[in-house]
């Protein structure tokens, strides 16, 4: 493992924005789209596109509903997403030699 080997890392999570989304949702809480957008400092379109990819992979569950009259998009990591994220972090940590 002398080379910088990212081939063993989950390519879907490895994208910078998707990694941030997964990290933000990693505590398992349901988060609002607007909250994620503001916290991660990304645009609506950018966040939406990345969330769609994560949803397609069944890493993130997205639910659209109304809070009063306001439309609300709720996002939460699925068990599959949580497992993939944990695996990603473990593999990343394995790249660092023990001190």
């Amino acid at each position, binding site marked *: 493992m*002398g*080379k*910088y*080997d*990212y*081939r063993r890392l989950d390519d879907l999570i*490895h*994208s*910078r*924005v998707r*990694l*941030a989304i997964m*990290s*933000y*949702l*990693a*505590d*398992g*809480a*349901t*988060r*609002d*789209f*607007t*909250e994620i*957008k*503001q*916290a*991660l*400092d990304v645009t609506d379109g950018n966040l939406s596109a990345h969330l769609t990819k994560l949803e397609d992979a069944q890493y993130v*569950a*997205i*639910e659209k*509903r109304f*809070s*009063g009259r*306001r439309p609300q998009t*709720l996002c*939460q*990591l*699925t*068990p599959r997403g*949580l497992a993939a994220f944990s695996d990603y*972090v473990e593999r*990343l*940590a394995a*790249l*660092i*030699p023990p001190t």
Partner: protein
Amino acid sequence: MTYQSPKDNDALNPLDGTDRPSLEVPDRVEIAQRDLAFIRTVMEKSRAIIGLSGLHLVSWGLITGSTCLAHYAVLGTSAARYGSFLWPLMVGLGWLVSHQISRREYAGATPCDVNTGRQSVERLFAGLWATVGIGALTMFVAAQLFDTIGARSQLLMVSSTMWVATFMTGHLSGIRWISAVSFGWLAFAIYVSQLAVIDRSVLLIMAAADGLLIVMPGLLIERARVSGGLPTPQNHTAQSVTYGQDQGQG
């Protein structure tokens, strides 16, 4: 120092061609460390924002404030001695409303069955306010049974409990200005302790305190939550997680 993940910079990507310079151990380690530091930064930012519903505070504030006003009104009638019975009703109603709010919050809102940190905090929060209710109920029963707890003592105990509960709400939720607001209850307790005579007008002041110290903060929290960002100190002071910036070493 600008952070560049392998995908952000082709020169670093070993998957894009064999003619790329391969990176040796120090670079690999450094990038992995930065990725982990980045993940930690985002996770800490996420944990700092607890999606606490302000409706709990609004409902408890409205119910206790209304009870104060009702008690004040009853004290002016021939049924004055039954005024204390309003408080156990208040506790029961408060629990019922709080329970319904929690049910509504989570009904269908969690597509996957994960026990969340947020839910744990809200359980703690619910337990805290349940303790307030139990304390008020115990005090009522003791006052009825032994008739040794005077109006001043009752007000002091209620305001002290409210102070602790509001302070802990701010502490648990990470919304620290709530903890600062909670000292209003301490001020109220000091005010009550220094009064020469406790008359029913104190109930009006307590109702106003309920509005200012519980309902108003609850409305502010709820308003911020619905708009997508809580006005927590962490929100205002934490740096945005900006892509392309060094997130520091873990």
